[in-house]
């Protein structure tokens, strides 16, 4: 079985002139249309950096920490749909990539991570900066390679990029010993890939009979709901989804991974559901009699108590990854298919489909929406939700938003409205703090003409704050709006709800003098001064009346920017379905 997923710029297998392994790596990257790589050098990857210095076709960005570089590669991948590429040296360089690799695995992000390795003669000898990164990453990669023979190098790169981007995307690592980088050889660059595993090369297409059955179920349903996830975005199937939802008149709730897969201002949209998702989305899914799950995986943050999830519904689960079927939730109709194909075909088969009269259902949902929108209590201080809403207003909803992990991540998804896919970029499966700013950096590299803003928390932002240096030096105008409450807000919220408000290491400043809008003297650290040290413009906002003007200043600035918005720590993310509980136990205040 032969196939290729890369652009046909190089129509036939090509024999190169004699070159070093490191130069062949660069040639392979160019052939895969890689235009940027986030790479931190070291002894075992120096040859690769030297080879990159000999080409002007690839922009090499030096992050200030390998974790920042790898999250940036993910941000680039999530914003564009293309494969993100990061590189590090052996040992500590490689281990610093592990969080991003795990994140890409959880969120199905196409990522190729290249690591230098010590000379093969030193492997297994506990040599300086030697770690078995191949072994360390085995459970969190889609696939991995250790190149032992330079002649395998072009084939491995071709395969790696195909694997990373095809089917359900994911991370692939390529570990290259220094002697392989230095070896001279005449490379043969293949055009196609070939796998002996029949599953990998297969096109996964639902049958017409399966899809007709789905249409039949919709025709008979009184309370249908579309539950759609990141698969729609990976498959670039959002247009087909919109046409399908409109044709069948089925309301849509997305997962957080699926935010933007369906326009949130659409009348059929119930925004996103799950632990902190919309009350109406959760109620609708709970009461549905037909749940159409497309490109999602019944994650515990979506289902709560899985045995009671959508208990009265017939469930259709279309996913390209058949190992997701019946994994978390037993369903009656598992269908293995590329979702873009399935939706396209559903739209064709349903060309004359007349949706059943589900007016009472739509009326019910509309009433829930009116009664329980995402909301917050106004305060004399800037509320964190208010800051997100103001950003939404001033950017006219047209920015790419990245986030760290915690309360701000949920508020960003609740109060910014996303009309398009690839606009909400966040570490959702792994929940890796420190993701936001480097991801914004990666997205901004891909889209220099778009506003890219990291909505972050003061805890998360601190975890990769060093990337301000990268953005300053590389002139990447990624911006950060910190919702600074001086606490690890989400953990604190759980303390307040379930642990009697006992603070277990959730205060980020001086515990005897906790900063707040009422106590600016206690605020710690001074993010504006830190930014200044990096040569980055920053501003702190304490007063409500300054908020919009300060956001506008951030938006108008043509370089990176840190906007430190001081908010009270007393806010909780609401609604909330406590972990492992059901919709009936949803907290609405």
């Amino acid at each position, binding site marked *: 079985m032969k196939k290729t997923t890369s652009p046909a710029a190089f129509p036939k297998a090509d024999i190169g002139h004699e070159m070093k392994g490191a130069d062949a790596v660069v040639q392979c990257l160019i052939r895969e249309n890689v235009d940027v790589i986030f790479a931190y050098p070291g002894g075992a990857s120096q040859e690769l950096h030297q080879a990159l210095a000999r080409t002007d076709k690839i922009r090499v960005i030096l992050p200030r920490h390998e974790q920042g570089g790898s999250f940036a590669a993910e941000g680039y991948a999530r914003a564009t749909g293309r494969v993100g590429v990061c590189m590090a040296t052996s040992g500590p360089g490689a281990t610093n990539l592990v969080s991003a690799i795990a994140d890409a695995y959880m969120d199905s992000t196409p990522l190729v991570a290249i690591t230098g390795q010590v000379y093969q003669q030193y492997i297994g000898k506990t040599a300086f900066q030697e770690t078995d990164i*191949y072994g360390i990453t085995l459970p969190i990669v889609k696939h991995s390679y*250790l190149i032992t023979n330079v002649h395998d190098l072009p084939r491995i790169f071709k395969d790696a990029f195909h694997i990373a981007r095809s089917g359900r995307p994911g991370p692939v690592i390529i570990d290259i010993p220094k002697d392989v980088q230095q070896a001279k050889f005449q490379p043969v660059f293949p055009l196609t890939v070939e796998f*002996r*595993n029949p599953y990998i090369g297969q096109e996964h297409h639902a049958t017409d009979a399966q899809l007709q059955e789905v249409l039949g179920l919709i025709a008979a349903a009184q309370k249908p709901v579309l539950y759609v996830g990141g698969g729609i975005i990976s498959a670039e199937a959002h247009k087909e989804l919109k046409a399908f939802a409109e044709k069948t008149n089925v309301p849509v709730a997305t997962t957080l991974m699926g935010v933007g897969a369906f326009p949130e201002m659409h009348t059929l949209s119930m925004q996103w559901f799950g632990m902190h998702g919309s009350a109406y989305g959760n109620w609708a899914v709970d009461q549905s009699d037909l749940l159409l799950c497309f490109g999602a995986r019944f994650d515990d943050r979506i289902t709560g108590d899985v045995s009671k999830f959508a208990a009265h519904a017939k469930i259709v689960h279309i996913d390209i990854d058949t190992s997701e*079927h019946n994994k978390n939730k037993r369903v009656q109709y598992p269908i293995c298919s590329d979702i873009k194909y399935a939706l396209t075909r559903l739209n064709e088969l349903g060309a004359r489909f007349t949706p059943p009269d589900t007016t009472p259902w739509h009326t019910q949902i509309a009433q829930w929406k009116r009664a329980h929108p995402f909301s917050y209590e106004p305060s004399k201080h800037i509320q964190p939700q208010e800051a997100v809403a103001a950003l939404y207003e001033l950017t006219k909803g047209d920015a790419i938003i990245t986030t760290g992990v915690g309360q701000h991540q949920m508020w960003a998804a609740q109060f910014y409205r996303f009309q398009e896919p690839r606009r909400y970029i966040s570490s959702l499966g792994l929940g890796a703090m420190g993701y936001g700013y480097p991801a914004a950096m990666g997205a901004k590299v891909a889209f220099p003409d778009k506003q890219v803003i990291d909505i972050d928390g003061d805890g998360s932002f601190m975890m990769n704050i060093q990337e301000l240096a990268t953005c300053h030096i590389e002139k990447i105008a990624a911006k950060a709006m910190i919702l600074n409450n001086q606490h690890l807000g989400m953990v604190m919220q759980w303390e307040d709800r379930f642990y009697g408000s006992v603070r277990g290491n959730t205060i980020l400043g001086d515990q005897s003098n906790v900063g707040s809008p009422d106590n600016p003297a206690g605020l710690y650290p001074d993010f504006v001064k830190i930014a200044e040290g990096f040569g980055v413009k920053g501003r702190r906002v304490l007063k409500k009346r300054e908020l919009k003007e300060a956001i506008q200043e951030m938006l108008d600035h043509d370089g990176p920017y840190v906007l430190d918005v001081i908010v009270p720590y007393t806010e909780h993310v609401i609604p909330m379905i406590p972990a492992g509980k059901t919709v009936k136990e949803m907290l609405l205040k």
Partner: protein
Amino acid sequence: MRHTISVLVENKFGVLARVAGMFSGRGFNIDSLNVAPTHDATLSRITAVLKGDDHALDLCIKQLRKLINVVEVIDFAEGAAVTRELLLVKVKADSHTRPEILQIKDIFRAKIVHLSHDYLVIECTGEDDKVSAFLGLIEPFGIIELSRSGRLALKR
């Protein structure tokens, strides 16, 4: 339930670790495991016998099929495969006990592969319960050490 899983894989390094990791990462205990090349030197067959919840194992098999270097996965239901195991056992044997051991050996169609004045090495093949029964009878004579291949299986 006990399952026999046969996994045909590309003969590349790291493949066994990936397959074994798929079991261990989900808390399956492997009862036996055998790996060797097939008639096609680029392919190896892994035969694993394991106990586990049927649903969990079903998921595990689906995930095995996604591994790039895996070519085929078969979960043999009881009776669907021809199975054999090879045992090598070193057992104490002096002039008094030797005749009885040889008698047992004959009944089980086992073979003596090494003989010395105070012990024997016996080779026994068969389905694993036969091998276990043979071991049960030999044990009282004093087993010095033993090695079992684990179950091998081919579709009937």
